[in-house]
């Protein structure tokens, strides 16, 4: 079941060459470790781009959005495999 969340989150990310990978994020006082980034896509946000990361931990899928203009992260969607 997919749930729309759209809440601001805090993220620890690594920057490698010209790419960025979220490693951990905290949401509702819980810390989630990103096991794998499966897919990255972009969407237009006026003149700039938003970066969407499709990531998973052991049991959940999350879509995280990074806005490079405001340097903010949002948890947009989640899917629980349980």
């Amino acid at each position, binding site marked *: 079941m997919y749930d729309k969340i759209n809440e601001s989150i805090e993220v620890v990310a690594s920057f490698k060459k010209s790419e960025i990978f979220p490693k951990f994020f905290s949401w509702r006082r819980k810390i989630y470790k990103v096991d794998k980034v*499966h*897919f990255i896509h972009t969407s*237009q946000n*006026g003149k700039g781009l938003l970066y*969407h990361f*499709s990531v*998973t931990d052991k049991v959940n*899928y999350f879509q995280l959005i990074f806005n490079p203009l405001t340097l903010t992260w949002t948890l947009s969607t989640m899917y629980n*495999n349980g």
Partner: protein
Amino acid sequence: MNSYFATVEQQANPFIRGKPVGVCAYLSNNGCIVASSIEAKKVGIKTGCLVKKAKQLYPNIILLENDPNKYRTVTKKFFNIMTSYSEDFEPYSIDEAFLDLTGVAHDYDEAFKLAQEMNIRIKQEIGSYLKCSIGISYTKFLAKFVSDVIGVDEIRSLKSKNELSQWFERYKLTDIWGINIKLEERLNAIGIYTINELKKSPIQNLIQALGKPGYFLWAKVNGLEIDYLRDQDQLLSKSIGHSYCVPNWTRDKKYLEKVLYKLTHRVGKRLRSRDQLAQGIYIYWTYVDYSIQGYGKRFKLKTSVTSTEVIFNKAVKVLRDTELKDKVRMLAVGVFNLVPRNNQLSLFITEDPRISRLVDNINNVYGDYAIHLGRMWKTEDIARDRIGFRKID
């Protein structure tokens, strides 16, 4: 690309891989599935199936709304991979493209190796779960035929005319590009029931029955190249339109006007981004009761238009002046007879496109709907961005 939208979703979320997945235009029971995963097809859920029907066929089906940005990103990436091999490239649709390898590959073995390389690069550079079928042949039509009929993630070549009959004997007339059920009926009427019968049919009979398209069809199945790769400009559609399947079926004209305005806003924006003017407008709608004929009107304009307001005012007049015979299921609006914008001043001032252009400019910088007219207040959830298979933008 195979089961494109669904496979991209499975690439993004590994927990839905190997499961029946339906990507929908809308999740409401009346919404329809625009792409089913390979697993969903196996349980009988095909593209076009209604959400409520899909739930009956497989109650645990995973349904999700389509996410055009995901598919556009993948399309852009696999188009880039293809064009790194040859500039002779035609982006046929969101999930399909042609590449002319003449001069790049010297024989079929070399072409096969390049195709394998492309397939591997798609998996490495975009996503390991993505699957594509690649057909290789000496005409555009035959390459598409091969890619359409081979298995998922397969690469096959049709190398010469000698192989044609053998390939064709395994497939139906409607398996080939350009033959739908209606055309099949017309071919049946002149005694053609198989692709091989079509291939062997006297060309005069086909021309007599179908006109010029009869010749094209005959040439294609006989392996004659009559087509060419079209570039982006040639592929631009001759009309621009948007439609919306209203989730809550209604006769409420105030609501329908809001939908119409949102659709017209998108039509106008695309028209202006192509730097074109429209000389015709169409509007049509269908009713919930399929037995009642939907209503549509197409009309040519005396002057070319480009602003959202003018297009909307002309279209909404049709809606206002027509009595609705039932609740509306789907509403569509569009423009046709498109011509390049010129700076010729009109003797009679019919529209001022400056406001529309200014709004476009602001939204292009600050994001869609950063500024919009009051008519669009609280229409965020109405007629959101959707994508069709034949669209590449």
